[in-house]
């Protein structure tokens, strides 16, 4: 009889920090202590606190252990599992909290600051169930929504519930999901398709991966519901081959669903047939665009095509197709079970429900968070994210990855929803949220995202293929210190031209990072151009390293660290010092920063 369960995170984050080894060690230690029949190990999906992995939770008490190494396992087993004494040193305590709050050891996970303001709908089962066990999904009301739809509802009623819920596409553009289904349903065709877009390409976004890894069955269930609503019997999940764990678990889940007759013919004895296949993407960013994705499924080159006709009319294999993002699908079963009003009660007027964000960059709690729409950026960063590390100042947050823009500090209290973000020139995007502190150069960030989009442009249309390349060259000119004020105007003009004339969403949104940084951080661009100075100290060509000759104690550590032999001893001895100071030869200096790192104690070297 199992008296206790040990949940070990098997999401990609924790697997790469070693959760697999931790699991093996648990198996070994449980056996050693003769506990293997009393304590069950469960591999789950992502808990969301990826920076603290590998994560282990012990139930029934709910003790939350973070950063568990294989060496810690013996102690957890012999102390906690055998004797009931939680290992205090491994228990997660809120970061940035004062000591006294840590005295309450058995803080339930749901009470920590990280989890308290979250509302988990799409991620409800992630980190709770074993994704490779269909029975655990069923225990959490899994497939009940599909059963309800097939036995009690008409396709029109399903579409109405989804429409009334106000759910909008979570892939970034925010098109109302119910309307998409409603546009596809009336089209007559011998075959229709449901496609799940799991080609999550934005740098820094990983919520779709986590859903597929932690709760693959909910995607299968939602796609079958969509199939019933629009009259499709076939579905495809287009997922990146770079997500091996997600692909594997989804494959297992599909096989289990077929075995249970939840996929296949005559599901719930309703006469409805539906089956799914996985298609692996090779990692091209443009394949996240719906028409390019469908070309790729068909076995063609992943190029976009002009719309209309929209996929709802002519999509995959020229048949009517509904294509939704993973996170959008993840909301569907809950909407069916709890009703449209329940979903519409969360969020803001035009953006209902919750949104998952992948928190990354300069933030204490890197990981996945799901919050109701309308939560402010400040709450996400300061409360859930635990603030900026090392006492640095918040500068901006990038939403929507390379298609989005940055939100500056002055707008940190903006409630986040589709329309507010669009209004300030950003976009929701798939939900990557990269936090930047004062050490980030905004021109450099814009250049970084352009680097990405230039690489990923498919080359079909000229504005995107050539325009982006030229944009990047202009930014390089500015960060090299060769820019002029005229360039800034040209930059803006070219951005707008690319936006208006590109064929697909990639080109239409690719200039956004430049436009947003130009709008909110024009002074930084001006500093680069006029003063030939990078205020954040990032752009190498604009930096000079100098040694304060009166602070230098002449130890010579910097000269040893310098890979370019650019640092030599002078004959100046500062008052009060015994040895002559050093100086940097600016012609030889490669600006690598090794000298500053070597002078941590004295701090005599600075860059400007």
């Amino acid at each position: 009889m199992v008296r206790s369960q040990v949940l070990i995170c098997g999401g990609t984050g924790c697997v790469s920090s070693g959760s697999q080894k931790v699991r093996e060690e648990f198996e070994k230690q449980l056996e050693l202590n003769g506990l293997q029949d009393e304590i069950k190990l469960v591999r789950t999906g992502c808990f969301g606190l990826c920076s603290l992995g590998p994560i282990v939770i012990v139930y029934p008490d709910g003790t939350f252990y973070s950063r568990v190494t294989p060496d810690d396992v013996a102690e957890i087993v012999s102390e906690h599992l055998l004797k009931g004494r939680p290992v205090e040193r491994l228990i997660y305590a809120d970061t940035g909290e004062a000591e006294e709050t840590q005295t309450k050891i058995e803080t339930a996970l749901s009470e920590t600051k990280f989890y308290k303001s979250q509302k988990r709908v799409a991620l409800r089962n992630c980190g709770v169930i074993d994704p490779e066990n269909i029975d655990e999904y069923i225990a959490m009301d899994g497939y009940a929504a599909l059963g309800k739809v097939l036995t009690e509802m008409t396709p029109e009623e399903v579409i109405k519930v989804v429409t009334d819920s106000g759910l909008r596409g979570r892939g970034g553009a925010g098109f109302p999901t119910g309307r998409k289904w409603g546009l596809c349903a009336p089209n007559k065709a011998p075959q229709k398709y449901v496609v799940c877009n799991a080609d999550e390409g934005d740098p820094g976004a990983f919520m779709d991966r986590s859903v597929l890894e932690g709760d693959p069955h909910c995607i299968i269930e939602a796609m079958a519901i969509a199939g019933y609503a629009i009259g499709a019997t076939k579905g495809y999940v287009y997922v990146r081959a770079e997500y091996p764990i997600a692909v594997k678990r989804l494959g297992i889940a599909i096989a289990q669903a077929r075995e249970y007759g939840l996929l296949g013919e005559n599901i719930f004895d309703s006469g409805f047939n539906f089956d799914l296949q996985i298609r692996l993407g090779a990692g091209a960013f443009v394949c996240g665009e719906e028409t390019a994705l469908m070309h790729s499924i068909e076995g063609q080159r992943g190029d976009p095509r002009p719309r209309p006709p929209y996929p709802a009319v002519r999509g995959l294999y020229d048949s009517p197709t509904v294509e939704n993002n993973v996170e959008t699908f993840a909301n569907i079963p809950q909407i069916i079970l709890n009703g449209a009003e329940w979903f519409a009660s969360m969020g803001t007027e035009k953006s209902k429900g919750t949104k998952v964000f992948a928190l990354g960059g300069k933030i204490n709690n890197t990981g996945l968070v799901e919050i109701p729409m309308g939560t402010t950026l400040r709450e996400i960063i300061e409360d859930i994210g635990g603030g900026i590390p090392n006492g640095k100042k918040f500068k901006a947050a990038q939403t929507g990855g390379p298609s989005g823009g940055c939100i500056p500090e002055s707008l940190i209290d903006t409630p986040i929803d589709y329309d507010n973000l669009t209004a300030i020139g950003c976009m929701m995007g798939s939900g990557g949220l990269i936090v930047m502190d004062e050490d980030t150069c905004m021109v450099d960030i814009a250049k970084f995202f352009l680097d990405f989009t230039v690489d990923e442009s498919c080359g079909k249309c000229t504005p995107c293929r050539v325009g982006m390349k030229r944009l990047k060259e202009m930014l390089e000119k500015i960060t090299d210190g060769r820019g002029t004020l005229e360039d800034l105007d040209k930059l803006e003009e070219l951005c707008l031209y690319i936006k208006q004339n590109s064929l697909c969403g990639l080109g239409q949104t690719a200039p956004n990072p430049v436009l947003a940084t130009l709008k909110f951080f024009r002074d930084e661009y001006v500093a680069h151009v006029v003063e030939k100075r990078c205020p954040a100290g990032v752009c190498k060509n604009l930096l000079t390293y100098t040694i304060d000759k009166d602070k230098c104690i002449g130890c010579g550590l910097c000269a040893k660290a310098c890979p370019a032999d650019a640092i030599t001893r002078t004959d100046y001895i500062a008052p009060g010092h015994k040895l002559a100071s050093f100086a940097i030869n600016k012609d030889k200096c490669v600006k690598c920063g090794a000298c500053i790192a070597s002078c941590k104690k004295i701090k005599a070297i600075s860059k400007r």
Partner: protein
Amino acid sequence: MKSLAELQKIKANMKQRIVLREGSGDIRVVVGMATCGIAAGARPVLNELVKDVSEEGLSEKVTVSQTGCIGICQYEPVVEVFEAGKEKVTYVKMTAEKAKEIVEKHLKGGQVVEEYTIGAYQS
């Protein structure tokens, strides 16, 4: 899968297992599992409690967990029952058989088994 009833059956079977992860039920049963408790035979008691609570279908109401030494080592194995709004009940010198009785009478029936409580031993 041909009917909702079939789905319900799987759900009901699995619920017992999953419910452990939802944490605190209304009643918490805590077994002292320090060295003294283990030496006195706390593990069979704990396992019996877990098994019976599950078999009686009490999993949603009752959470069985363990704790360290309570400080009355001579009375081990010790089992404490916490219930919101009621006074804590401490059972001492437990055995698997007594545990079975406690699940039956106390956790299910709501009747404290006075003869096994610490009060009965001390008086």
